[in-house]
């Protein structure tokens, strides 16, 4: 099985190498992404193989890595689960990109080689059985995705996004390396098995928790380290943003879960879950609220990713807390919710980002205020979007609701930890998760309603055409999977049993009964298949009875709109002012929540009576991470740069003595280290 995995990795690396000379060839994109599609399908096959057998696999030592610690490839339940997600997201993204030339928006040749490397980096991170290979894969993933974010660097906002992204990637690396270093101990045992055998204690454990949260959180987009996500995801080409949002943030969460739940051992105290719970809840709320205020389709989806990453982190935090309090079944419930939501979100968000790409290709814009009425021109895209949107809004019987149901059940069981502080925290977390779900529904309604419903808002949007064949296939693949994952969450969670064992130790039972999800012994359950069948049955009966009563077909007429006058003939799509825009739909939530949480504001510049200039309305908000985190860091950077600048003005004597002093200092340090 690992042979197949290694073969797929090699294919990806070879594709990247071949893409450099052949990048300018007309069909290079088609061939390259077809290769990526095959490799991704290979990942799916390998992951399913490992999950079905439930046995971890490990390879011979590789001729590669640090001399004192041989590295091996290996997959256990946890990494196979995330590999499954990577394979699905990678297949859809590669399939989408095969239409490269046909959509009239060919990718620049420089965007071709990093894509297979990005996939390979993520796969390598998952297949690592030691810290060296994991960090190598993680950095490969960061670097390749940075190259993809910067691929369209002609536009200044993309350059700024790429710079910020690189900064956060460096921060992630700079935190994860010492975190694994602390786990490895003084012996330098990079092997995961050795780390598990000697779990950290005391200040070391706390430092690992902090560094892991900073490092993996920066890559996953957890508040307060989320500032890069709404900028970088839209900057990349659509299939890459799909992969970044669907898979890469999950790889970061995998590293977080591996580090905190697996490598630090099962004996960590219950309060370890608290920082994850708090950060997750903050991310869920902030992401969902921002998604309601953004007016760029991809930025909106990126904010919704922050929300979902937050929800998954809540699940992981609850699993840690329950495990620390010796509540095994509840820990399995929470961890199951986190794993299921990771998969579900990865699938539907991949689909939604690809849909945003198809809309960009077909209707020429990502801005909600330039789209509208696309359901008539792009029916297949609209269908796929509707499924994705309904899943993201966590509506039954789709996949988003199944995992959200499990997560809410875990949160509602938070009071079983007998510590009143945690109980109140879990109750607040439940309220925040419910609010985030409702906010996500509002954001998704706004997104779908503005893009696909209503009237066109620009001539280019009115001339939209349906996506080409591969793009349509790439949209329908995640949409179909979303329905399947929603109808059979019990089976899917059964598949995750080996992964659950990796997270919470030998599981008593997976929180599922057949196709049902079950919150525990004798507790309530959720049977999506039955609910879907009942809904379909009631729908059919209602339709039949109503149509028997009134068999006449629907008539069509001019829009009523409370008797509003007909638009003048020079406005073929009706008066644009009578159709609500992105800012208008966002207005209630901006005033109700945005003003207090995001310092949102509106300014109206109304001309005086008699003046002929147009009035202006502007609405905006400030993400708290800007003034509270990014601005101080930028000031610090400027001050350090100014200080360092003074070195250039030193005399030659001072320069020489400075280098001599450095040399002496380093030698002294070496001597002291040798003497210990």
């Amino acid at each position, binding site marked *: 099985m690992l042979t197949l995995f290694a073969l797929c990795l090699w294919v990806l690396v070879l594709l990247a190498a071949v893409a450099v000379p052949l990048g300018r060839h007309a069909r290079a994109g088609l061939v390259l992404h077809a290769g990526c599609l095959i490799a991704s399908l290979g990942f799916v096959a390998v992951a399913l193989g490992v999950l079905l057998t439930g046995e971890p696999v490990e390879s011979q030592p590789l001729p590669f890595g640090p001399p004192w610690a041989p590295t091996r490839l290996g997959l256990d339940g946890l990494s196979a689960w995330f590999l499954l997600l990577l394979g699905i997201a990678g297949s859809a993204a590669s399939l989408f990109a095969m239409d490269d030339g046909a959509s009239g928006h060919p990718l620049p040749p420089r965007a071709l080689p990093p894509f297979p490397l990005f996939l390979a980096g993520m796969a390598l991170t998952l297949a690592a059985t030691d810290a060296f290979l994991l960090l190598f894969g993680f950095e490969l993933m960061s670097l390749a995705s940075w190259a993809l974010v910067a691929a369209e660097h002609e536009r200044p906002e993309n350059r700024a996004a790429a710079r910020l992204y690189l900064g956060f990637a460096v921060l992630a690396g700079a935190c994860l390396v010492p975190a694994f270093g602390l786990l490895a101990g003084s012996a330098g045992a990079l092997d995961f098995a050795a780390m598990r055998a000697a779990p950290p204690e005391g200040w070391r454990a706390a430092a690992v928790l902090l560094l892991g949260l900073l490092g993996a959180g920066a890559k996953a987009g957890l508040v307060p380290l989320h500032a890069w996500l709404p900028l970088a995801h839209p900057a990349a080409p659509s299939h890459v943003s799909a992969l970044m949002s669907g898979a890469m943030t999950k790889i970061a969460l995998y590293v977080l879960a591996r580090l905190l739940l697996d490598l630090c051992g099962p004996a960590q105290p219950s309060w370890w879950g608290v920082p994850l719970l708090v950060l997750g809840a903050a991310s869920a709320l902030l992401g969902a609220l921002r998604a309601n205020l953004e007016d760029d389709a991809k930025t909106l989806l990126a904010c919704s990713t922050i929300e979902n990453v937050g929800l998954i982190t809540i699940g992981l935090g609850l699993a840690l807390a329950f495990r620390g309090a010796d509540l095994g079944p509840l820990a399995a419930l929470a961890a199951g919710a986190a794993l299921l939501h990771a998969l579900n979100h990865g699938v539907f968000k991949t689909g939604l980002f690809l849909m945003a790409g198809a809309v960009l290709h077909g209707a020429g814009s990502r801005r909600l205020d330039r789209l*509208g*009425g696309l*359901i008539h021109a792009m029916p297949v895209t609209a269908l796929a979007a509707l499924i994705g949107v*309904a899943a993201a*809004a966590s*509506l*039954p019987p789709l996949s988003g*609701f199944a995992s959200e*149901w499990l997560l809410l*059940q875990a949160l*509602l069981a938070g*009071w079983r930890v*007998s510590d*009143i502080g945690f109980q*109140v925290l879990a*109750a*607040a977390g*439940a*309220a*925040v*998760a*419910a*609010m985030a779900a*409702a906010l996500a*529904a*509002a954001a998704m*309604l706004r997104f779908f*309603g503005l893009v696909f*419903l*209503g*009237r066109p808002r620009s001539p280019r949007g009115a001339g939209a055409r349906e996506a080409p064949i591969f793009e349509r296939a790439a949209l329908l693949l995640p949409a179909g999977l979303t329905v399947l994952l929603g109808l059979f969450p019990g089976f899917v969670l059964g598949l995750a049993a080996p992964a659950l064992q990796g997270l919470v130790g030998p599981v008593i039972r997976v929180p599922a009964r057949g196709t049902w999800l079950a919150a525990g012994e004798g*507790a309530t359950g*959720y*049977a999506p298949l*039955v609910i879907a069948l*009942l809904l379909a049955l*009631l*729908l059919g009966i*209602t339709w039949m009875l109503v149509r028997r*009563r*009134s068999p006449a077909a*629907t*008539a069509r*007429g*001019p*829009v*009523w*709109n*409370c008797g*509003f006058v007909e638009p003048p003939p020079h406005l073929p799509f009706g008066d644009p002012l*009578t*159709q*609500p825009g992105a800012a*208008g739909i966002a*207005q*209630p*939530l901006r*005033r*109700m*929540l945005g003003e207090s949480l995001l310092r949102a504001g509106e300014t109206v510049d109304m001309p005086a009576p008699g003046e002929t200039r147009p009035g202006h309305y502007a609405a905006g908000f400030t993400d708290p991470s800007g003034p509270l985190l990014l601005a101080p860091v930028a000031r610090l950077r400027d001050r350090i740069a100014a200080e360092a600048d003074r070195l250039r003005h030193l005399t030659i004597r001072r320069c020489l003595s400075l280098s001599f002093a450095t040399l002496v200092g380093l030698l002294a340090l070496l001597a002291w280290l040798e003497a210990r």
Partner: protein
Amino acid sequence: MQVFGAILTQLLHLLLMLAAAPLLLGVTRWLKARLMGRRGASPLQPLRDLDKLLRKRPVLAENASIVSEAAPYVAFAACLLAAALVPSFSHGMAFAPFADLILLAGLLALARMALALAGMDVGTAFGGLGAAREMSFAAFAEPALLLSVLNFTILAGNTNLDLIAATFRDGALGLRVSLGLAAMAMLAVAIAENGRIPVDNPSTHLELTMVHEAMLLESSGRHLALWDYGAALRLTLWLSLIAAIFVPFGAAPAGSGPLAWAIGLLAWLLKMGVLCLALAWFESAIAKMRVFRVPEFLGAALLLALLGAALLFVSTGLA
């Protein structure tokens, strides 16, 4: 007998809900009119309206899509399924194992989403306005609802409606302050979810103040009938839900036979009558509030439910 009774009561319950929904709405309107000193239309008026509308064909705007055609059926089916899950005259019905409170919230969210999508379908000003407001209210109602559910979960150990009702019916819990707080939170959520005064005015004629009705301005004929019927079902289901949780007495076991069912039906009708009277009195006594005051109203409900949960934490911690 047990299985047969469960299936039979489920079917009877479904028919009861379908029959009672327009009547409850009519009775509430009539009571409200009487309380305000008007004569009021007959309680049967909603039934007549539905009957008339159901026979008419709908007129859709020229640019309406399949969403306008399908949404009324989806929303109605979701409301009907939700109503089928909430027990009325009997407990232990065939769908009882699925009657999960979170699923109930999900089904209502499905109906709400279908309504909001239909409101945005033709791109009119009021449809979008109503959709945005409706979804924003939900963002405050859902946390309050979930925290009320948390209170029940702590007391009954479950989120299944039937099991919660069974636990509360035993009476072993006695009167709890937390349950009172949760009841107030649930009532506030019910008012918001059904678009009643003070959150929304169901009989308004001023478009700018509409929330729920604003999304229906474009629908007509059988579509409008389905929307109205769905809204009536939702009101019935919420009243029934509150009765099933807080006054679960009198409901007959599913396998107990027609006489017990009739007694259960009488008890249910009594509870519904009292709740309708209370709703009508409350609506007559209070004015509609500004849209941007609604978060405060629902925020108070959220805090009440959280207070109830905190009291339970303290009391279970001492015990």
